[in-house]
Structure formats: C-alpha cells, structure tokens
C-alpha cells in the first residue's frame, strides 16, 4: 500500500484501455525553473532505473546563477546499454511558457508534449506531437492543499510519468520516503499526496499513452551485485576512498567542488582528513605535503585552478612525488562557461607547467569509469612515484548513471603509510630504479637523511649544477613514464577492425562515439571506434590500428585551433605523423549529439550513404503508428 489515497491496485483509478506498448528506451526532458525540483524528479527516475536493473543516463543543465532561472533535466532510461543522454527527447514536460518555447524544438517528431495547462499555451493544431494538457499547478495545489502553494508539482509529474511508463510504484514510493524521510512527516505525506494525484490523473486524458520497458535480459547482469546510482563526481570520490586515499586538499570551484565536499564529509570516518585551503596553490602544496608523509593525497579543480597549480605540479614532477590531481573540465578560457562542458584542458594537463615535465593523464569514459579510473590513477601514482592528472568534465560530474556496485572486498587498497626503516644504501633518487621516498618518521640506516627538492639534484637529493646529472635525471623522469606506457592495455576498439573510418574519442565522448559508430555501420560504412582512457602516455600499438583505416576522425569538445585540429588530434598527429588523422570539434558547451559526430565523419569521408542516413528523421519511440 503506497498511501491512504492510493487505490489497492495500481491503475485502479482508470484502467488503461489497452496493454502497454513495449519500448527499448525513452528520453524524457523536464524543463522548468531551477527551484522547481525537476532535478529530483530526474534523480528519482534514475535511481528507480538503477533498482530495476535498467540502464540510465541523465543530462542536466543548471544556470550558473545562484537561484532561479530556467533549468532542465533530461533522463534517458531503458533496457540494455544506454550510451548517451539522447540527441532529442521523446517526451517533453514543460512547466512554463518559456520552457515550452525553448525546448519544443528538442522533441522528436511523434513525441509527447506534457504541458502545464495553467501556464503554457502551445501552438494550436501542432500535429507533429501528441499534446497532453495537464493542470500540473492546480492539480498539485488541490491534492496537497495548505500553504505550500504549488510545491510538490515535481512529484505530481513523477506520478504521471510513473503511470505512462508503467513504472514500479512500490519502488518509487520507497525512494520518495527515503528521500524525504529525514524531514517531518508532513513533507512525506504531502509528497505522497502529490504523487498519487499525478498517478491517478484520469487515464482517458492521456490519449492511451501507456508503455512498458522491454524485459531485461538478466544474463547481461552477470556481476551478481546490485546496481548503484550516482553522478561522476561521487563515483570519483568513492574510487579514491577505495584506493586508500585518506588525505586531500582543495579550493572550491565549479564543477569540482562536490568532490571535495564528499571527501570532507567522508574522510574523517576513515581516519583521514580533507583541508579546505586559502587558494589553489595552497591546496596542491598541502596535498603534496600529505604525499610526502607517505599518504598519497588528492587535490583537484577545474581548468583555471589547474593553471594556478602548475608551478607546484612542476615541483612534484621534479621531486617525483606521487599525487592525484583531478580536473573537472568546464568551458574556458578564464571563467568561460562554468556550468557547461568542454574538453579543452587536455594540452594544459599534458604540457602545462614549465620545463620538461613528463606527466600521466587519464580520462574516465562514463560515470562508472570515474570510480575505476580513480583507483587506477592511485595505483600508477604509487607505482611510478608521479603526479597523475584525471581529466573529468562537467557532463560526467553532474549526470547520474546506474552501474554495478564495485566488488569492494577485492578492490580495497590498504591506506597505510610505510614508515619502516630504510637501509644504509637508501637513496631517494636512484638513477637505476624508480624513486621510492622515505617519508619523515622513517629511520635511515646510513644516518644521512634525504632531501626532497625542486632543484636538480643528485641521487641523495642534494642540489647539483652538473650538466651530466641534469641529463641523467631528466631521462630518469622521462623513462619511468615511458615504461608505464608500455604496460598499458590496448584501448577499447569496437566495430570493424579495418575500413573507411576510425572514430577516436576520449573522456565523456565515449558513449556518443560508440552510438555514432552504430549509425555509421548501419549506413553501410565500414568503420571502427577507438576510445582512449590513457591519454598520456599513450598505450603502445596505436600506429598499427590507425594504419588499417583510411581516415582517423577524432571527435572532441574543444576548438579546432589555429591549424584546424582539436587538442587530442594535435597530439596524435604529432605522435604518429599520420596525415589521415582529422578532427571533429565543437564549442557550444554541450555534449556531442550522435548526429553531430556522424555529420562530422560524413564531411571527412565524403560518403553518400552516410549523407543519406543523416537526412532520415529519427522518429520518437512513443509515436503512434
């Protein structure tokens, strides 16, 4: 029983006139203002999908202003792999006229428009869509009553959506209770009243809109572990915890802040601490200080903050100190587009700073990978005694996905600092081996204590002006990173192993890239998709893969620059001197649409088949026959 207002059987208010139609996945865009709680509707749907073993991906835009202003939340949920948030919506929920005006263009032909008839007047006779007028505001006020006015209309809509897509009402009710359970009982009761009212809205007004997701093939969920639902910043923070990181320091900046908030809250439980510093430079300095005491530490920021950290990062390279630096990329340069996505910090991450600073740069491909890349970054930082930069981005930071709970008992890393005695022959910077620091607190057998330094130094860490040593030490710092490169696994390659085109992506462009490949292959073009998680050093063997395709098209969210190539393309062209490497870039601050990548590929390979496929309008899965 959901609440006193709910009929005994779901749907009892007005039984659907027909059996639900089966759909694979659906994209729902909720458009309103930022205070309407539409993010929480998206959050409920995402978590429900996670609990139902369905895949889910969300896409959120929030205004960078403090309160108010238009806001959207898009959720794509369905059966099987969901790789992108979807080019266009199958269902648009418009709370206001401005929501309708701004987003009706995002609705696929045949899609469903649910609009608040108290606020929105849609274009009359627009028969491209199924239009459903719902008195969302007055319906909510009527259901909840009291002084809350229209508060709760997000939950009203959640009820309506639950009806249309035949969602599991019991599970949703449980989620609502968990979410509001900590508050007073009235809030839970009002939320359930709004939910029930939305759910019970007369079915015949819905024009027989009634769908059900295809049954999940449970064999594809082989891990045996339940799904969890979270955003990329959370996954990254928890990956660091699993990897034994117990110390960190940072300074607030969008979209990095939520990682430091999570760590500040969580770390004391694990015996650790996270320090909020006076600025970005202090943050990285404190983090390196932690690492020096034997506790691999994390600092992070967005692009402008990474620039501020560069001098200290140069020191960490010179002194060979392990360190994790997270950069959640946003639109730049400068303050730029702080709540939009961009992949424009790649070259900064690899080549920023002064002097020759060979660096490790990794990038997660989706929310789940944020967890695993954090763990891998820690392993690399410890093994090679080096700073590692994780390049995430705004899209990963803010979107919610469901993934299998990690196998924690297998993955957990012991966080203990090694303060054991070091032998008489201890040297912090041996020329013939990778640096292993002796943290303060550890006794040194020779009685000669080591110095860590940013000056060029000898094997014991003492400063030197020797040309020979500078050459040798520069090579030492370079060779260990090259050694890492040879140990990396081959990157993920999908589709045809040779052909007309190889699509290359990095970071959050993985999903749209993979979906674009499916469209390209469906159009009859032979091609593959290669995704890079390890960007610097590059894994071995890419040259051979590139040689099997006529064109290598690198899709990334940054500018084509002065010479017509995006940042990864610049790197790959410099590394492989292969003129077949070309670019698809964009700088609108939004994640790639599948059609944008396909159109970009079509431009480069001049394929009539691909061009033709672009002309075919994608009809909504919700369209009536």
């Amino acid at each position, binding site marked *: 029983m959901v609440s006193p207002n709910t009929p005994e059987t779901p749907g009892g208010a007005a039984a659907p006139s027909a059996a639900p139609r089966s759909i694979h996945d659906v994209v729902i865009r909720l458009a309103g203002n930022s205070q309407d709680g539409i993010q929480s509707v998206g959050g409920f749907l995402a*978590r429900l999908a*996670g609990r139902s073993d369905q895949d889910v991906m969300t896409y959120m835009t929030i205004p960078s202003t403090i309160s108010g202003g238009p806001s959207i939340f898009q959720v794509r949920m369905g059966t099987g792999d969901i790789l992108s948030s979807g080019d266009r919506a199958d269902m648009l929920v418009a709370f206001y006229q401005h929501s309708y005006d701004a987003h009706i263009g995002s609705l696929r032909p045949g899609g469903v428009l649910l609009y608040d008839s108290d606020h929105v007047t849609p274009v009359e006779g627009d028969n491209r869509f199924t239009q459903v007028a719902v008195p969302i505001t007055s319906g909510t006020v009527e259901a909840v009553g009291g002084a809350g006015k229209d508060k709760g209309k997000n939950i009203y809509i959640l009820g309506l959506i639950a009806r249309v897509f035949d969602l599991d009402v019991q599970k949703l009710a449980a989620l609502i209770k968990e979410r509001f359970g900590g508050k007073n009982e009235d809030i839970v009761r009002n939320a359930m009243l709004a939910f029930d009212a939305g759910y019970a809205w007369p079915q015949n007004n819905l024009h027989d809109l009634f769908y059900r997701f295809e049954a999940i093939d449970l064999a594809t969920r082989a891990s045996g572990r339940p*799904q*969890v*639902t*979270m955003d990329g910043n*959370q996954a990254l923070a928890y990956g660091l*915890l699993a990897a034994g990181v*117990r*110390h960190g*320091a940072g300074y607030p900046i969008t979209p990095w802040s939520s990682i430091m908030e999570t760590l500040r809250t*969580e770390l*004391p*439980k*694990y*015996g*650790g*601490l996270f*320090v909020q*510093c*006076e600025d970005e*430079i*202090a*943050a990285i*300095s*404190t*983090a*390196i*200080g*932690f*690492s*020096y005491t*034997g*506790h691999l*530490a994390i600092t992070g920021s967005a692009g402008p903050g990474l620039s501020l950290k560069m001098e*200290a990062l*140069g*020191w960490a390279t010179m002194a060979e100190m392990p360190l994790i630096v997270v950069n959640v990329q946003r639109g730049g340069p400068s303050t730029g587009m702080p709540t939009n996505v961009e992949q424009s910090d790649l070259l900064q991450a690899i080549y920023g700073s002064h002097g020759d600073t060979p660096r490790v740069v990794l990038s997660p491909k989706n929310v789940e990978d944020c967890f695993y890349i954090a763990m891998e970054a820690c392993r690399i930082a410890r093994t090679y005694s080096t700073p590692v930069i994780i390049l995430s981005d705004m899209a990963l930071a803010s979107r919610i996905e469901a993934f299998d709970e*990690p196998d*924690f008992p297998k993955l*957990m890393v012991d*966080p*203990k*600092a090694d303060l*054991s*005695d070091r032998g008489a022959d201890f040297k912090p910077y041996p020329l013939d081996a990778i640096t292993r620091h002796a*943290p*303060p*607190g550890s*006794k*040194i*057998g020779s*009685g*000669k*204590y*080591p*110095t860590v330094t*940013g000056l060029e130094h000898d094997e014991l860490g*003492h*400063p030197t002006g020797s040309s020979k040593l500078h050459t040798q030490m520069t090579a030492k710092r370079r060779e260990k990173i090259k050694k890492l490169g040879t140990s990396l696994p081959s990157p993920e390659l999908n589709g045809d192993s040779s052909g007309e085109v190889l699509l290359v992506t990095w970071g959050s462009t993985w999903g749209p890239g993979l979906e674009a490949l499916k469209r390209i292959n469906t159009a009859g073009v032979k091609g593959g998709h290669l995704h890079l998680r390890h960007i610097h050093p590059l894994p071995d063997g890419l040259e051979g893969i590139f040689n099997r395709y006529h064109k290598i098209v690198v899709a990334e969210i940054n500018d084509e620059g002065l010479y017509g190539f995006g940042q990864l393309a610049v790197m790959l062209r410099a590394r492989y001197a292969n003129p077949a490497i070309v670019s698809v870039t964009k700088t609108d601050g939004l994640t790639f649409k599948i059609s944008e990548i396909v159109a970009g590929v079509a431009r480069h390979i001049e394929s009539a088949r691909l061009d033709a496929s672009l002309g075919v309008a994608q009809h909504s899965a919700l369209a009536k026959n």
Partner: protein
Amino acid sequence: MSSPTLVSPPTAAITTAVPLTKKILTADHPTWCPGCGDFAVLASFYRVLEKLQYPHEKIVTFAGIGCSSRFPYFVNTHGGHYIHGRALPFAAGISLGNDDLHVFVFGGDGDGFSIGGNHLVHTARKNVNLTYVIMDNSVYGLTKKQTSPTSPIGFKTKTDPTGAIDQPINPMRTLLNTGATFVARSHATQVNHMVEMMTRAAKHPGFSVVEILSECVEFYAGAFDSSIPRKGGTWSLIQEKKNDGTPEDADRHDVTDEVAAFKLAGQAWPGSFGVFYENNVRKTKNVLEAELVTKARERTKNATDLQLLQATFAKMR
C-alpha cells in the same frame, strides 16, 4: 594527523640511542656569503635540536625559495626545498599528515611577507602545529638586491634605484594580525636569544613564528646596526611578566595580552626583541581535525573501511 590506522607499525631494526649532536646534524656546507647572518641562525638551530633531543627521524626541516631557504640542505634531517612562498601550506600537509613530527620551516622576508603572504595568514589562523622562522634581511639577496617587503623607504636597490617608495610591512603587527599563537622576534647577532626563542617556539603547541633580523652583508650591510650594541645600537629585550607580586612586575609585558603586543609592535625602529604574544588556549588544527575523526568514528561505531564503503553504496541502490 597520525591516526594509528593510517601508519604502518615502526620497525625496530635501527636504534638511535646516540644523542643528536651538531656533528650528526651537519649536512652540506652552507652556500651563504662569508659574514651572512644566516650562519648564526643555523648554528643556533643545531643547538636547539641538541637541547630538545627529538628522535632524529621525526624532525623535518623545510623551506621555500631564497638565500635563507637553502637551510634544509645544511641540516641532516628529513626535509625539503619547495617553491617560492609556498613552504607553509606544504608544511601544513606534513604536520597534519603525521602529527608525530616536529616541523620547522625556514624562509626569508620575500617568501613570508610577499609571495607567501596569504599562506602565512591562513596557516597562522588555522593554528597548524609547526614552527616558522623568518630570516629577515630586508632585501632580495639571492636575486642580487631588489626591494623586499620589509625594505625601508629610501633604501636604494636595483628595482628602486632612487630609493624605495612603498611603505614596508611591519612584521610583528602582521604576524599578530594573522592570529599566530606564538610570535617572537630575535636577532642573528644574539645566539643565546635565538636559541631561547626557537626552543620556546618549538615547544609551543600550535603555529609559532620567530622573526630573526639577519643581515645581508653583500646587499644590505649595516641594516640592523641600530640594534647591535657594539655598533652603537640599542638591544632592547622584552621583560616578561613574572606574576611575582613585585611593583616592577606591573610594567612588565604580559605575553597573553594581544593589545599590549600590538603596542610593542608599534614601537619606533629598531623596537624590542623577545616574545610578543603567546596563546596556549586555542586548539591547533591538528587537534580539531583529530576530534572530527574521533566523533566520526564514534558515529560509525568504528566500522572498517570496507564496511563504510559498502554501507554508503547500499544507500545508493
């Protein structure tokens, strides 16, 4: 923080029964110019460590950039040489990363009051448990005579060939303003005084700072003569309150009185030397962070790391 769960148990292979002596503590020969005041600061620091006899492996000597910041190379302890002005936040990481350590940071007036000014303020206000020694020579020496934040008006440098025109920092006022819980001033010609000030600073629980006037004989000779008696100057020692009930005690300086400390800091050049301010009441950040851990561990009933993560993820199903 040295939460016991985060550090491996020490091995007992090496015993350090031998007392720490200047001989053991001496490392590279200093690169300073002959006659530099910093030699005396170094000699005093050896004596401080001889006096305190901390376990050798638990002493950390750290610095930023500048002539004085070469210090860690000359002291045989764990230590490091960081970037310009940022030694304090690094040292905060050391102190908070392992509470068992004795952390000493050395630097000059440029490091402390110019490029690192913001870090001085915040490391002090957070009361991170470490000792900071500022060797003030009122000039940029390593880069060969540019104006420093403590250069007096009229001092001719390569960047102010007609004499400095900007108001210099008053180090004592600045340090008191930051919220530092131990603030003292000394002079490189007064070895016993330096030893006393640095020893008290080392023993102080919290952020302790000692400013030492240390002459640059190459680029600012005679800068501090007015406080050297044998050069005709006045050595004015702060008389600390003894609370002995004598009438003269009423005129002595109460080191816990912030207002009195500010008054002393406002004296005309060359001013007084000694402890200006000491606050042993305010908790250190080290203690406050440890309290957060204790509370969090109580709330979570000392769950293991694995249990904690599993419980968190169970909530996200």
